[in-house]
């Protein structure tokens, strides 16, 4: 066996241990009725899977997860590109702004959750104060309103992601040859035409990649929702990851939570495969 294989073998074994072994355990538990995932357990076949489709919460939470993803994608694919285009200049001001915009990205989600809970608190929050005092609006119940909570969380989640997307877009923009723009200007192309025919195609691969990351991370988003609304009010922000957490650690139904996790994993793999097939940038793009 080649020396290289022996060298990577320990890491491969470790990686298998921390990924494959929990996965195998999860598959095993998904066919059992078990509270904690250890101790007493009873084999029930597909009972957990059938229960999920009948319980009236799993399918709506799955639907909600997709709506969550699409709402986040709409912001996370467009705003970073816009900001990157605005910050693509080359002087000290642009360089310093590129540093400041990273702040939302580097903050831990716990801090972000607390900050936004205080800002948006209707009675003592700073946004509520400005809305009441200067615009005579409110109080607005951002997190307690069934019509607003979901969109408010999507905004905050996107606010957190935007700096990361922007940095990737900026990097992609820096690879576009400047002389292409010069030639296009000489030919009379407008800003919009230069964007559509030069910029967009040449950074297409990066947009595709940002979209893939935004999709995966948004779908698996748990911490922000749990820290702010715990899936409420009612079930309006109960996405699939939040529901899985509730099943496992609040309702002590580890078997059902395992089944839900596997279904979620299968969906993500399927969607990712489709995404690669349909949206992969063509060679030469």
């Amino acid at each position: 066996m080649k020396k290289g294989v022996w060298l990577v073998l320990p890491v491969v074994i470790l990686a298998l241990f921390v990924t494959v072994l929990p996965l195998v355990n999860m598959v095993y538990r998904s066919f059992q009725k078990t509270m904690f995932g250890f101790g007493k357990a009873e084999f029930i076949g597909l009972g957990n899977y059938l229960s999920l489709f009948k319980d009236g919460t799993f399918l709506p939470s799955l639907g909600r997860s997709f709506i969550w993803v699409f709402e986040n994608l709409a912001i996370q694919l467009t705003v970073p590109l816009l900001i990157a285009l605005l910050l693509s200049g080359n002087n000290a001001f642009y360089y310093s702004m590129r540093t400041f915009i990273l702040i939302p990205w580097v903050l831990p989600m716990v801090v972000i959750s607390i900050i936004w809970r205080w800002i948006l608190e209707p009675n003592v929050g700073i946004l509520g104060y400005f809305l009441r005092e200067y615009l005579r609006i409110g109080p607005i119940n951002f997190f307690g309103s069934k019509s607003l909570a979901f969109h408010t969380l999507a905004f905050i989640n996107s606010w957190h992601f935007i700096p990361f997307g922007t940095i990737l877009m900026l990097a992609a923009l820096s690879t576009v040859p400047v002389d292409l723009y010069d030639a296009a200007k000489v030919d009379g192309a407008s800003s919009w035409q230069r964007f559509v025919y030069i910029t967009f195609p040449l950074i297409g691969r990066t947009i595709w990649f940002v979209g893939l990351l935004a999709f995966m991370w948004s779908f698996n988003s748990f911490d922000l929702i749990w820290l702010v609304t715990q899936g409420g009010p009612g079930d309006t922000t109960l996405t699939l990851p939040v529901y899985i957490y509730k099943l496992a650690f609040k309702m002590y139904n580890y078997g059902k939570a395992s089944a839900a996790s596997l279904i979620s994993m299968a969906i993500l793999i399927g969607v990712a495969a489709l995404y690669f097939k349909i949206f992969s940038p063509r060679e030469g793009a």
Partner: protein
Amino acid sequence: MVKKLVLFLLIGLILGVGFSKTTIVFWHHEAPAHRVAAFQKVIKLFEKENPDIKVVQQVIPWGDAWPKTLAAIQSGTTPDFQFSLPELTITAYQAGALVPVDDIIKEIDEKYGYIKSQLAPYKFDDHYWGVPIWTMPMVLLYRPSYLEKYLGTKEPPKTWNELLLAAQKITLLSSKEGETIYGIGLTAGNNLCTQEQVYTIMSNVGVEVFDKDGNLTFNTPQTLRAVEFYKDLFKFSPPGATGWAWGEIEMNFTAGKIAMMPYFGGLQKRFYELKNFDLDGVLQPYPVDGRKANLIYPNDVHIYKSAVEKGHLEAVKKFILFMMRPDINAILTAEMEPGSFVPVTEAAQKSEHYWNNPIIKAFKHLNEVIIEATNYGTLYGFEHGYAANLAIGSISGANIIAEMIQKVVTGEMGVKEAVEWAEGRMKEFLK
């Protein structure tokens, strides 16, 4: 040569003494720095009296308590003992990880006199599985100045009707004056805070989650009545309360936006720091055909089987008994969270170490009410003096009662429908 031998023996002796120390480890979930400091103070005092025992505290935030506890039980890495709540102790018990503590309870009761109701949440299957260390009674906190200004009296409401009228009057009159003061602070977020506030109201009409034999008895006229009253009272709670948890309600009350609220007395610490003494309390108002009652949440310590396996049980018992000494218990109660963490024994409740704390002294009447409330306290699922059905751990952890209230106050469901829904969800845990 002799000198070398003496030095060698001396080093050996020191190392020997060091190695002969028993080290016991406990988990707690009180992450704020001042609480960690209070625990460390108790540890230092204990180690001074017991130089052969070393005590190590490890802090796990409440949000991680359940997953980390279950992971530790599964992997065999539990601490010797853990500070806990009824639901967590039940979970650890159901995972087969605990040892009974009947002997410790007996000894503390003989020495210091337990408030008997505080033992109820930890008695199941004819044994005690948790040692109550302090408790958390809920009372009706209020701002006397607001009552005087808008109601013409400093006397707080004593019945449900008086409470509802007072909340309404304060909200409407303050609004007429251009102020935004709400008569009552109630939450409807999907969390434990809501669950506790709802239950304190439920306790006044004798709601029982289970009967004596552990049968579910949640959907009753008493429950419907309590939920209906909560819904009516909630109208005079600030906007945004449907999404509130602990932080928001405390901030709003301290900021003067709320006149009254069923809550724990720990807010007195913040008022003391702000030198604002406009705070008092009264036992939870109840309907004329109801009863004096309130939510109470005894916190306990449970001991893991691993402590026995490691031979640490005696050291752990010593530490627990030490914590229940009135002078030491005052550090964990009056010093750590005055008004929120309250002694569970008669001796500690009467101790001068408790009452001489400056914050307790500054809000003497409020704290007298809080101590009195321990006599009327009850907790969902333990209304009969023991855990009638262990499913209460999961039911409480899933915040079903809070979710039910949220459905009612957001208009998603009517009262009857929501209570039926809640009972249906509870039944799932019984399967």
